[in-house]
Every structure is written in structure tokens, then in C-alpha cells.
């Protein structure tokens, strides 16, 4: 099967990704490393003590993971899993029960030795329309994936 030829234009939208955050999902994420003790993510009392919040919060690393998923789906795992980056700033807490939507827009393309780095601006919003995170992502798309006029 031949490679998919794609154009990457500034301003192109990335297909959004929507995730419903639950305490069960948070517990699985936290527990997947073998860490089973109470934390600000899994235990309301710990969250109150450490953060001073009513209720637990999701780790920012879950948002990071979702942003990575959005870009992996866009660029394809064969590209993103080997050249992908995401850099996110966390602006508001994400709590169990929140629905978070990840959106992205291509913000530039620069030449690299083995392809072109396609950069994406990322924004994360919750169900209230509040921005919970912003950042950038990128992947190096091999020249074989680009139309000849873009090489």
C-alpha cells in the first residue's frame, strides 16, 4: 500500500477529541503505575489536605495523554509515536464529571533533516466553555507523506 499524501496548511483544524472524566478513569490511570495509596487524585481527604479543594482532580498528565491521542489520530501512529511532541500548560483543574474537548489547529511547518515538522496549537475546554489547558504539539512528517510541491 502506498503512503498517504497529505497537505498541511496553516489554520487547518485537527479533528477534536472529547473525553468524559470519571473518578474510575482517574483511579485506573493512577493505579496503572502500581501506585495504590491515596493521593490528591484518588482521595477527597488528600485533595482537601494538599490542594484545599472540595473533591479530587485529574492529573494534568491525563490531559497530556488525551492531547497525544488527538495528534496520534491525526498524524498516524507510525509518525506520531516516533516523532511526536506535546507541551501543555494547565490553566484550570479538570474534575471527575467534567467533559473536556481537545482541539487543534496547524500553526506552521518547518523543514527538518528527515521531513517537515508540522506544529499544532492545542486548546482544551471543559463543558462550561472554560479553557483548562493550552499548548503546542508537533510531529515530523516524512517527505514521502508530503506532496511534491511541499518538499
Amino acid at each position, binding site marked *: 500500500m502506498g503512503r498517504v499524501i497529505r497537505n498541511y496548511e496553516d489554520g487547518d483544524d485537527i479533528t477534536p477529541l472529547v473525553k468524559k472524566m470519571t473518578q474510575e478513569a482517574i483511579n485506573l*490511570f493512577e493505579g496503572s503505575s502500581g501506585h495504590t495509596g491515596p493521593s490528591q487524585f484518588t482521595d477527597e481527604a488528600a485533595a482537601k489536605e494538599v490542594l484545599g479543594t472540595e473533591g479530587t482532580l485529574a492529573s494534568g498528565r491525563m490531559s497530556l495523554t488525551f492531547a*497525544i491521542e488527538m495528534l496520534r489520530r491525526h498524524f498516524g501512529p507510525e509518525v506520531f509515536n516516533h516523532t511526536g511532541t506535546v507541551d501543555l500548560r494547565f490553566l484550570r483543574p479538570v474534575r471527575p464529571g467534567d467533559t473536556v474537548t481537545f482541539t487543534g489547529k496547524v500553526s506552521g511547518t518547518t523543514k527538518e533533516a528527515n521531513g517537515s515538522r508540522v506544529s499544532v496549537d492545542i486548546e482544551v475546554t471543559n463543558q462550561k466553555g472554560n479553557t483548562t489547558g493550552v499548548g503546542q504539539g508537533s510531529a515530523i512528517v516524512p517527505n514521502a507523506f508530503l506532496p511534491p510541491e511541499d518538499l
Partner: protein
Amino acid sequence: MAEAENKIELDWDALEVGETFEKFEYLLTQEMIDTYRKGVMDSEASFPTIAHKVDVRQYNDRYTDAGSVNARCAFHCYNPPTAGKKLIVTAWIADKYLRRGKNYIVTEAVSVDEDGKLIDRVITHELKQPSEVGKKWGG
């Protein structure tokens, strides 16, 4: 516990940028990967290492502090890790800074597997006054 007794109370001013921690090793199991994928609701999620928080693990083993909040995190994908392989992590203090009177510590870590294959790099900016979250977003 001896491990806790060996910890040092964080002195932010004295903390040296560039301090590199002892290498940390762990075995990545299929169960870890499956649990991670359920948690993030993505059957193809390829970097379960994110949930292991390896960049701050060594810091937390060495220092005690009031806790932290993740303010910013960057992740570089190189090669998805494989179940059944041991991962070796090198972590260090990459930076520290003051912003609006708040202390931040930046940790960085690179993971390779037992065959020497580069897996990922993670860089995290942690706010060391976690109660600021409750003050601003408490309810």
C-alpha cells in the same frame, strides 16, 4: 521507615539545577498497559509511561515538601515501550524559577528500555505551593 528518614526537606533556594538522581528501573507489564489504556479510554494508547510520573518519582524519593501541582508538562515520543521489558529512567532537576511569587521546579527524565532503545522524554513544571489551587479553584 528508613526510606522516609533518608529524605531531605526541600530547601528551594539550595536546590541545584542539574542535580541528577540515581537511575530508576521498573518492569513494564502488560497489566500496567491494559490498566492505563482503560483509564485513558484509548485501546491504542502507546505511552503508559506517562502515568508512571518518572520525572518526579526520583525527586519525591529524595525530598519532602508540601506537595505540588503540575503546571505544565511536555512529552516527546520516540518509541512505544514494550510489555515485559525493563525501563531505565534518568531524571534530573532541569530548572527552577519564581513566577508571581510562587516557586516552580522543573524536572526532566529520559527513559530507555533494557535494549537501549530510546522511549520518551518528559519535562514537568511543578508549582510547589499546591494550596494555591484550593485558594483559586477550591469549591
